[in-house]
């Protein structure tokens, strides 16, 4: 191939990517019209970037987190805003794609955001991270649970501008292992988790470590890919090993089908998982009966009688005609924490906000009371939720 022909192709490719970016941009809000001023200190509003998965594989996470975040912003603005200024949400869709999350962040930086809420998954946050670090703008990840989101594990360095609102995979995996051994009193377990992403692999790893260190035995480790729909081969194999518990870290899209197939094959033992299970689709796909005797670690419970939680649940239900899931709650808390940090910093300067975020002590959100530790993780409680006849019951 001649050099000239090659560069022409590259040019075409770049053009195609551009067109895609333009088309994707059209899905956003009217706020993009204001992109030109690009100054985040002089404006009469404080711009908050909301970089969410509004379409693509995990659209339900992004949708709900955005809804939660917008309710928080509405509440804050109604109460007079922050430092006398209104918060202005800039909502953008990253299509559940890592590279798109990065593009969205870059566009939001140009539009003058002071901080970003989202993306939701650890992979997409990793995509967004370089842009945020380079421009020194804090990012609060509502639900990215991979340990390396806030810490560069290779360089053993905290990522200065990245914070999170949820606990880590290690905490979650350990909590479920403790729950299985201490509460369910099981002695051996099988692990059958997604191998397509760091999140599920992390959960599996920390579950196994904790389970074994407490004297339990792991009898089988199997894996599946995101997008799979056929799990009966490995499930039949697991059935042959007679585990007392099966740990299934992954997302609801696969887990729901998996649990149904497990129950169909006569595997009636308790099944556990992580916050990736949290979606109304679980009950729709797997059915209420198959979900009995399944447990997952989560960020909060809708059933919690705490008045702050109940008023949020009411506001959300009135607006969206459904109960808020954890993503909605975490999105809500992320905005509240950001507003709290801006107030404490007494400035909407991104660097000062970051410093205030680092100093967070005993912030009370609806997902619990938390402090931010030196690795930018919140220190808080983990709830275990049980499915009982299609209803969520906290344990």
């Amino acid at each position, binding site marked *: 191939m001649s050099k000239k022909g090659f560069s022409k192709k590259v040019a075409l490719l770049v053009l195609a990517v551009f067109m895609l970016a333009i088309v994707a941009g059209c899905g956003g809000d009217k706020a993009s019209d204001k992109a030109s001023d690009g100054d985040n200190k002089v404006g009469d509003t404080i711009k908050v970037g909301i970089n969410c998965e509004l*379409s*693509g*594989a995990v*659209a*339900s996470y992004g949708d709900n987190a955005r809804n939660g975040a917008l309710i928080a912003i509405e509440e804050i603005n109604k109460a007079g805003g922050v430092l006398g200024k209104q918060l202005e949400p800039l909502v953008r869709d990253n299509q*559940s794609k890592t590279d798109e999350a990065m593009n969205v962040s870059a566009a939001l930086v140009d539009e003058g955001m002071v901080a970003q809420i989202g993306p939701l998954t650890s992979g997409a946050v990793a995509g967004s991270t370089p842009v945020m670090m380079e421009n020194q703008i804090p990012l609060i990840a509502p639900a990215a649970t991979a340990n390396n989101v806030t810490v560069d594990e290779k360089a053993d360095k905290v990522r200065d501008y990245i914070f999170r609102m949820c606990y880590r995979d290690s905490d979650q995996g350990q909590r479920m292992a403790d729950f299985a051994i201490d509460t369910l009193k099981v002695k051996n377990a099988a692990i*059958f988790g997604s*191998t397509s992403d760091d999140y599920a692999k992390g959960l599996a790893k920390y579950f196994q470590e904790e389970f074994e260190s407490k004297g339990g035995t792991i009898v089988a480790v*199997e*894996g*599946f*890919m995101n*997008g799979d*729909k*056929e799990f*009966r*081969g*490995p499930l*039949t*194999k697991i*059935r*042959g090993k007679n585990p007392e518990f099966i740990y299934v870290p992954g997302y609801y*899209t696969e887990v*729901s*089908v998996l649990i*149904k197939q497990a129950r*169909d*094959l*006569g595997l009636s033992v308790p099944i556990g998982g992580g916050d990736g299970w949290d979606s109304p*689709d679980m009950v*729709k*796909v*797997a*059915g209420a009966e198959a979900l009995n005797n399944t447990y997952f670690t989560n960020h909060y419970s809708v059933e919690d009688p705490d008045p702050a939680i109940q008023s949020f649940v009411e506001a959300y239900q009135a607006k969206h005609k459904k109960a808020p899931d954890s993503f909605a709650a975490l999105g809500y808390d992320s905005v509240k924490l950001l507003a709290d940090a801006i107030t404490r910093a007494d400035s909407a300067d991104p660097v000062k906000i970051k410093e205030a975020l680092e100093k967070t002590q005993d912030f009370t959100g609806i997902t619990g009371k938390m402090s931010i530790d030196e690795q930018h993780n919140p220190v808080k409680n983990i709830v275990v939720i049980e499915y009982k006849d299609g209803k969520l019951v906290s344990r």
Partner: protein
Amino acid sequence: MLEFMQQLVNGLSLGAIYALIALGYTMVYGIIMLINFAHGDIMMVGAYVGFFSISILGSNIVVAMIFAMVSCALLGVVIEKVAYKPLRNSTRIAALITAIGVSLFLEYITLYFLTAQQRVYPDSAFPLHKYEVLGLVISNKDIFIIVSAVILMIILQYIIKRTKTGKAMRAVSLDREAAMLMGISVDRIVSVTFAIGSALAAAAGVMIGLYYNAINPLMGIIPGLKAFVAAVLGGIGLIPGAMVGGFLMGVLETLVSGYGSSMYRDAVAFGVLILILLIKPTGLFGKNTGEKV
């Protein structure tokens, strides 16, 4: 032994779905030498048509399946007329790339209009019953899928072997120009082929929806690729080859994940494709004609 039998049942119902999709690939290839990469996505459209006819029109599963098959047959014919017919005399690579284009078009048009949210087949459409025979768990869904796949294959065999249209299809497949000289309308035969192939894919789509409950706009990609491997395994262009290839793939995949490791399942499936192409490119049932790919 019990576990092996269970894996076999699992593999056969998966294989039935692959076989149905593989049939469409193979028929189209047999007639116009085109690997129709949009085939998996036609299956996806079939799954959606089935879903909407159950959830909106409230039809039962058999009606939904027939409805999906008819609409996808039409879709297949339209796709052929619009996208492939103008290219019938151009290079094969042009038609192949067009097929990939059609595939992406179907995926993203569905994504655009129906969003990426997965849809859930209503459970009431086909309530699950499980039967335990000597510790072997077989559900009515397994039986429904295997039986209806076999019935569809028998009907297909009948059409091809016993009807005039089938005879014409075989003639076109053997030698298009000679068939034309004999007064066979090649255009009509190609349309019929696409209609039948797409209808089979739609049936497979409804089965997948029924079996795994959840459907989404990108669900056609992986089963489409696996069915393509199945078609090549049996010998692309050969109808019995596609059936056997489909069942073999299903069983092989299940056994690999049951006795080897579930992580290697896809690697084995595509490894089979490479092996077949290296050792016996005409497939298990293929004869060496010296002219094929």
